[in-house]
């Protein structure tokens, strides 16, 4: 027998046997998978941000395919269009749910909140928050090392080098909450996008007494309670020297914003005020 023939024979038989083994194993261990899962997964962004509450995009796709309705299923990172297509695949009605956005509740920029100490540890908010309240007199506010930026899978948040605070890109943010979970000071809140994406919130987390808070930061909430009495809808509560606007009750009237002596209430995406004389800056001066 020629050597060539032998090798061809040996290799051929080996290949055949192994092929049969692979085939039978594949048959035996075949898992019937819902084809919808794969289709849905292809539509999802694949960032595994966890904003939907499921373990990654694959988990969400599985949940969509298994569920009998789209109730409570919403990919926070997807546009409505994508959710509609997912609903088409599953054959269920799309559930209406408010879209959400991350809101940074601190206005303590370098100018408003001067630093009194120097932190020279690693650039990580989590590490900085371990032993002290940060470089400034306010131990509640932003630490400025950008853990939220690292947490975001969608490039929707970035540090503004001028203010030293994170800024949320409203277009890109889907409100998945990854940044809020990462922030050791819990200054990021996930709020509903209202009509025309208008939002009004207290941009401060400082729970110190008024004078202490004011000394540390010129735009800190001092807990004076003017906004509480100004609100006609009981939407504002005051706890531990800090006001909070409940987004479910707030009717976006903007009365509180003009009342706040510290300008710590921020209104976003509102048209400019008609009556210039009532602008908060002039009132204050």
């Amino acid at each position, binding site marked *: 027998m020629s050597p060539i023939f032998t090798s061809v024979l040996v290799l051929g038989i080996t290949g055949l046997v192994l092929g049969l083994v692979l085939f039978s194993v594949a048959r035996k261990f075949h898992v019937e998978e819902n084809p919808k899962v794969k289709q849905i997964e292809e539509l999802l962004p694949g960032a595994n941000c966890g904003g939907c509450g499921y373990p990654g995009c694959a988990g969400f796709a599985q949940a969509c395919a298994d569920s009998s309705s789209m109730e409570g299923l919403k990919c926070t990172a997807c546009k409505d269009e994508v959710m509609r297509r997912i609903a088409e695949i599953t054959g269920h009605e799309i559930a209406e749910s408010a879209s959400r956005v991350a809101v940074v509740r601190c206005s303590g920029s370098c100018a408003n909140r001067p630093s009194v100490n*120097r932190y*020279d540890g690693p650039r990580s908010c989590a590490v900085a928050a371990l*032993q002290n309240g940060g470089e400034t007199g306010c131990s509640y506010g932003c630490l400025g090392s950008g853990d939220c930026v690292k947490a975001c899978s969608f490039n929707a948040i970035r540090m503004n080098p001028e203010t030293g605070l994170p800024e949320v890109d409203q277009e890109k943010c889907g409100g998945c909450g990854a940044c809020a979970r990462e922030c050791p000071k819990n200054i990021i809140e996930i709020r509903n996008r209202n009509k025309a994406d208008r939002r009004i919130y207290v941009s401060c987390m400082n729970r110190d007494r008024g004078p202490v808070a004011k000394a540390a930061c010129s735009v800190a909430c001092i807990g004076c309670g003017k906004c509480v009495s100004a609100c006609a809808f009981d939407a504002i509560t005051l706890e531990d020297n800090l006001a909070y606007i409940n987004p479910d009750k707030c009717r976006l009237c903007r009365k509180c914003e003009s009342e706040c002596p510290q300008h710590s209430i921020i209104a976003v995406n509102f048209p400019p005020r008609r009556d210039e004389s009532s602008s908060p800056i002039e009132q204050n001066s």
Partner: protein
Amino acid sequence: MMSQNLFISTSPHIHCGDSVERNMHLVILALVPALAASVLLFGIGALIVTATSVASCLLFEWLISKWLLKRERCTIGDGSAIITGILLAFNLPSNIPLFQIVMGSLFAIGVGKMVFGGLGNNPFNPALVGRVFMLISFPSRMTSWPVPHQMLAYTDAVTAATPLGLVGYQNDSLPSYMDMFLGNTGGSLGETCALALLIGFVILLAFRVITWHIPVTIMLTVAVLTGAMWLVNPEVYADPLTHLLSGGLMLGSIFMATDYVTSPMTRKGMVWYGIGIGFLTVVIRLFGSYPEGMSFAILIMNAIVPLINNWCRPKHFGEVVK
């Protein structure tokens, strides 16, 4: 709160003052005796090769970090590129042409170190990566060693076989132990003078740059294994002392195997690593096709270091030993 602008980083608040630079500079200092010996033995050629190698290593590290990696801070100041340059040169014959040295340096720095992210991330010793690259690319140039004491000769130097090349063929024409100890034999320019390398070892130990574990276990393993073989058949196998004093064994075990980045993290791991290098060196020297096996042995063990680190973990305080 008064504005004092105090530092508020957490404890510890003091540092022992050690730095990467300090360690690297001490290694360079420990290499100086061997460099002096090589100049005395191989003359101007040794100087040319070392200078070219160091200069090109520095240049390539600077070029790569500046233009390819676009790093803000260049790392050539830490001294590691100088060490790579010197060690690469020490592994070359003193009559090797310049362009080959430059290519070897490029490979050592580029492929051996910078592709992994620079100092600290490289799995293999960069100088050895460069040396093995050259050994495979330019085999004839890399294995013809000039005879010592040709002070002004460079590429035109007369060459001869090294002691290890003679073993097994002409055992009676081996140089004396004293000649091998002082480096009075052919060989790569930095590896021949065992005395100078041992002085370097003492410097490294005195300044606590390295511990004794790796070099001593390599030498012991080599001595024990070659000794056993020598006792079996002294006709074919050289005696342990010849093995210890010849080839790159001293250079490799003292300076190359002890490289921080590519050696294990625990004492126990270092001992196993040393035994592995010694064993592989002996196997390659006695049964392989190359007369010298140190560089391959170190590179192979470098690859196993992560496994050694996983296996030889320090004993956790209070851990119950079963």
